[in-house]
């Protein structure tokens, strides 16, 4: 059943992105919004909009009943969850289907399976995908865990089975630390996720974060190659690129094949991403987790493959089989994305909501700006700080980084501080230019470069428009 009217159960730049993809497909759009998002760009662009409650996400964007009522009231036949909020909530996916609507994403069963990090590791292992050495299943006792880490050796990461996205991770470098941290981690996991189940993994220091984009229709699965997202602050990605500057062709082939094997093993439907750690000293990669949704950094894959991932996921949800064969997916050139956040890098990334007094957006060949901004827009304080993403594409990596510098110079968001100065500094950095980094590279770099990250024109000094 082809989708005729799509409700977007999200906000910000991804809501805008989904509206555009739906319009390209001739699908009408319904944007739900909280009171704080009444004036958002997504509401302006959508064909219809529905108020679903107060600013607090728990009372609006996480309010399943209000979203389902908005879908039924507006006559929408499908719901796109975006990322975050309800995107990886199996109960919501099931409730959408139970209401006779289409959930643009995988089945509730796939979400549940991959959401349990222990079950996901087991699925990976049985599909022949390498995982970091560690516990086979969840650990319920400190003694059992300790017996295991005596074999793997330190350092180890203690992770919550119900966690994800870097939450609830502790690193133990000695037996003493391990005995100190295990009970803490257990109590915290129970409080945070309602599930005290833990697992332990060997920590691979100096590893890179590489992920593979897949598209499936519930029967067949293809990959759209990889992205490297090693530049992270507090386990949040800030700079992503495709292809990875660190993979050899042989490893790329093996990595992407392993991702397809795992996604096929679970009959995956929709767009998904398999995250891996990659040790470029040994050439070994290890499955971390699968994200069963569209990701923030999906545009770099779109830029190098020419595939519109959001459009494809909507088509698949409408019942179409995959239209692209694996041998038709080719990578051309290089793409980099940087996340423009409402944070001040000169003040330890202090969040910075407020009114955008003026806005200049970069343009030209190979430059894309996916954002929720317009001049005069007031960024609400209630949600995450992502304002938009600047994405560039060029024939190779050095050219793409040059193009990024030039696009950043054209980008001007006045009235609020943004992370733009961080990317200007990174684009000039010799290690970044050489692709020499890993997931723990950026934080020490920030310590030593804090002084150079001051916003060129602080908001207080910004000129007032005549």
């Amino acid at each position, binding site marked *: 059943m082809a989708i005729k009217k799509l409700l977007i159960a999200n906000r910000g730049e991804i809501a805008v992105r989904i509206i555009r993809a739906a319009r390209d497909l001739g699908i009408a759009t319904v944007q739900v919004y909280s009171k704080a998002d009444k004036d958002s760009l997504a509401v302006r662009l959508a064909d219809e909009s529905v108020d679903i409650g107060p600013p607090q996400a728990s009372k609006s964007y996480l309010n399943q009943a209000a979203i389902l009522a908005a879908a039924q009231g507006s006559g929408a036949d499908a719901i796109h969850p975006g990322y975050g909020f309800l995107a990886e909530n199996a109960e919501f996916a099931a409730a959408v289907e139970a209401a006779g609507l289409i959930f643009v994403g995988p089945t509730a069963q796939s979400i549940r399976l991959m959401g349990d990090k222990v079950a996901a590791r087991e699925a990976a292992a049985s599909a022949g995908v390498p995982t970091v050495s560690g516990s086979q299943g969840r650990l319920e006792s400190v003694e059992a865990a300790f017996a295991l880490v005596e074999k793997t050796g330190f350092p180890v990461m203690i992770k919550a089975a119900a966690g994800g996205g870097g939450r609830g991770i502790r690193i133990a470098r000695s037996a003493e630390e391990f005995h100190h941290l295990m009970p803490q981690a257990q109590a915290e996991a129970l409080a945070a996720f309602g599930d005290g189940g833990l697992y332990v993994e060997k920590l691979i220091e100096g590893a890179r974060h590489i992920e593979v984009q897949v598209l499936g229709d519930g029967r067949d699965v293809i990959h759209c190659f990889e992205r490297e997202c090693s530049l992270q602050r507090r386990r949040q990605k800030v700079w992503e690129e495709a292809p990875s500057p660190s993979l050899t062709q042989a490893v790329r082939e093996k990595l992407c094949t392993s991702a397809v094997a795992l996604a096929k093993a679970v009959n995956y439907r929709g767009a998904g991403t398999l995250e891996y750690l990659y040790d470029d000293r040994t050439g070994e990669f290890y499955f971390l987790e699968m994200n069963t949704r569209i990701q923030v950094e999906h545009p770099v894959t779109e830029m190098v493959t020419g595939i519109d991932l959001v459009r494809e996921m909507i088509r698949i949800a409408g019942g179409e089989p995959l239209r692209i064969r694996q041998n038709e997916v080719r990578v051309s050139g290089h793409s980099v994305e940087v996340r423009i956040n409402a944070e001040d890098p000169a003040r330890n990334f202090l969040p910075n*909501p407020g009114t955008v007094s003026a806005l200049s957006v970069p343009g030209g060949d190979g430059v894309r700006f996916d954002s929720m901004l317009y001049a005069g827009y007031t960024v609400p*304080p209630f949600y995450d*700080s992502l304002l938009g993403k600047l994405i560039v594409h060029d024939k190779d990596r050095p050219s793409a980084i040059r193009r990024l510098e030039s696009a950043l110079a054209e980008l001007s968001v006045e009235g609020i501080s943004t992370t733009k100065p961080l990317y200007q500094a990174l684009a000039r950095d010799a290690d970044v230019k050489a692709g020499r980094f890993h997931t723990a590279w950026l934080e020490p770099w920030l310590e030593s470069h804090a002084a150079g990250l001051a916003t060129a024109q602080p908001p207080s000094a910004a000129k007032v428009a005549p």
Partner: protein
Amino acid sequence: MATQQIFSPLPGIFYRKPAPDKPVYKNDGDVVAESDTIGLIEVMKSFNEVKAGAAGKIVRFLAENEDAVMAGQPIAEIDV
């Protein structure tokens, strides 16, 4: 004794407790020191403590737990 107001330093969501399953920082009628935390403001997913700012006795809270507040909005009254 004079009554003063404690203002939210930032826009965001106001919380009276350090975590959902913990008791409130302060109750109406509690005596507070200047550096005591009386609540949290969540701004773009980062949590910032709100200090009493003056020693005294809390008369009453003007903002409820999980209220959306603006920067400069009074959130409690205090007798100093």
